[in-house]
């Protein structure tokens, strides 16, 4: 064993032998770490919950509608206004920062779908593959439309739940051929039940085809009813919406003072404040945790300083036995580090347990990842080294003659 290994082994044995002293020192750090870990676990859980809510309520989506403000409030009429084009969607995708996904959307009412002797008259949508993710929807059977379907202007169709039930009461819609207008379409998938939304639209009473197919084969027009956009930073929703608006005003050559010929709608009723509040709370609890951790470090330092005084005879003895002052420093620094790490393990266990308890009681959300463990143990090691430096230095500088002379007759 090398000198360092021997000293380390001796430190371990010494810490184990003085259980009470060691435990008391660990306690100081443990409390700080417990608070820190609980804060992280709850913080991550809260963040997760917010993201889930955001996705669930479409709070991360911007919608551009053709037609100015007036038309927005006439949902039953087709807006057939020739203002929004696919190039607008591409421009938004390319030029607006903070935009994650974009889909062009066309729609038309009173489209008849026929299978054998059954038919359904429904609303048809032409969309791009991103549409499913932007709308946070899912397929119940089969698969969604793909880029290949777009490139090929394929005659494939997704059925809403109600339409699928009407045409295929026994199920098995996927793979069958239905007729839309005079053309055969293959059923690629069935969408999950979604119900009626707040605006009165029935999500289950619709069919969805690739945008390329709808614009060039079914509706024979390039103009869009909507562009739907998923933003990457919900907090910057309003800025992103404004940017989109400005871009489209330029593209549509709308002069200053003239009204928009489109309408940008975001989740205006999103409480940005609530998002900010929870991130403020998180920052606050982190601040408390850091203070608690520092307090724990100070406690270790003071206990170690006291220990150095109490153990002056031991230090003098070790020096007499041939310990260098660097050996003494190393011994005490290692003790401090190990005590801090031990306190860290204790603290993380306690903190995570508390966070889980709070979550079980419904008071907070929680999510366990490796983050609290890494942060806790990392900061403990740092605290142990930092706050151990002073006592270790003091121990190393102790003059052996002084401490041993105290025993002379």
């Amino acid at each position, binding site marked *: *064993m*090398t*000198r360092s290994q*021997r*000293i380390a082994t*001796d430190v371990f*044995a*010494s810490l184990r*032998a*003085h259980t009470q002293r060691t435990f008391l020192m660990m306690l100081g750090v443990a409390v700080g770490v417990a608070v820190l870990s609980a804060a992280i676990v709850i913080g991550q859980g809260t963040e997760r919950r917010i993201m889930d809510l955001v996705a669930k309520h479409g709070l991360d989506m911007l919608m551009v509608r053709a037609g100015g403000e007036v038309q927005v409030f006439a949902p039953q009429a087709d807006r057939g206004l020739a203002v929004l084009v696919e190039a607008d969607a591409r421009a938004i995708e390319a030029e607006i920062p903070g935009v994650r996904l974009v889909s062009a959307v066309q729609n038309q009412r009173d489209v008849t779908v026929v299978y054998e002797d059954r038919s359904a008259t429904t609303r048809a949508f032409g969309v791009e593959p991103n549409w499913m993710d932007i709308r946070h929807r899912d397929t119940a059977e089969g698969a969604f439309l793909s880029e290949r379907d777009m490139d090929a202007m394929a005659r494939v169709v997704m059925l809403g739940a109600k339409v699928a039930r009407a045409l295929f009461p026994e199920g098995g819609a996927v793979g069958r051929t239905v007729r839309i207008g005079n053309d055969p379409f293959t059923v690629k998938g069935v969408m999950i039940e979604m119900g009626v939304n707040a605006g009165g639209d029935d999500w289950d009473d619709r069919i969805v085809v690739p945008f390329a197919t709808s614009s060039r084969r079914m509706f024979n027009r390039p103009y869009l009813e909507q562009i739907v956009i998923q933003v990457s930073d919900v907090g910057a929703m309003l800025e992103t919406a404004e940017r989109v608006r400005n871009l489209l005003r330029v593209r549509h050559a709308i002069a200053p003072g003239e009204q928009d010929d489109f309408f940008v709608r975001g989740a205006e009723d999103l409480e940005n404040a609530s998002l900010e509040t929870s991130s403020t709370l998180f920052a606050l609890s982190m601040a408390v945790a850091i203070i608690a951790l520092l307090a724990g470090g100070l406690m270790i330092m003071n206990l170690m300083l006291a220990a150095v005084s109490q153990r002056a*005879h*031991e230090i*003098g*003895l*070790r*020096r*007499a*036995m*041939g*310990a*260098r*002052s*660097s*050996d003494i420093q190393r011994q005490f620094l290692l003790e401090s580090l190990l005590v801090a790490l031990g306190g860290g393990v204790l603290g993380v266990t306690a903190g995570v347990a508390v966070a889980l308890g709070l979550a079980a009681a419904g008071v907070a959300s929680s999510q366990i990842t490796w983050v609290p463990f890494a942060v806790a143990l990392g900061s403990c090691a740092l605290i142990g080294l930092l706050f151990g430096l002073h006592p270790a230095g003091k121990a190393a500088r102790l*003059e*052996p*003659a002084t401490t*041993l*002379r105290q*025993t*002379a*007759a």
Partner: protein
Amino acid sequence: MMIEVEGLTKSYRKGSAVTEVLKGVSFQAARGEFVAVMGRSGSGKSTLLNILGLLDRPDGGRYRLDGADFSTADDDALSAARNRKIGFVFQQFHLLERASALRNVMLPLLYCDDESDAGATRAEQALASVGLSHRAHHLPGELSGGEQQRVAIARALINSPALILADEPTGNLDAQAGKEILDIFRRLIAEGRTIVLITHDTGVASCADRTLVLDAGCIVPSSPAGAGVSRAPGSGGRA
């Protein structure tokens, strides 16, 4: 010569007060000699022992240990010399309370540059040499005063040092235990080690080959300079 000391001076400063503890001490000790140092408290005995043990540096004068001059040596060199060449025995024993006798004896091995793993064996042998093999795993609290001092001696011997420095080794022991310790010391002398021992007990001093008497930081001469005082029962402590 094991020890050559010439004109050692040492003073301590406390605030503005300066206390001269050693005022020019000179003496020599040959290999295998047993030297006792006597004197009233405050005469500088412990300071002298600390300097001999490389635990303290003199302000002036020269000290050669086994032919080597350590006056300009750095901390690492001094520590290595203490580890290899010197064994200490204290009045208070100074054993680690929560460590077994065996682990206490092995303490100097922590600071050895030799990386062999034969430590435990050597410790067992050292304990055997002081008659305590059967107490290897006892804590100091479970041992009598005499046994604790014997563990301390085993510890002092583990690196086979040439010089043993003892500060009132029998001071905390009863007569019987004290006698056992002295028997061990005599055996060590027979093995060729040098022992310098502080004591206020003339009986103990009488076991030594010669006695140095310190008074107010100087060696009291009662024979040609440098030779110290030869055994004279009842004269210890008086000028």
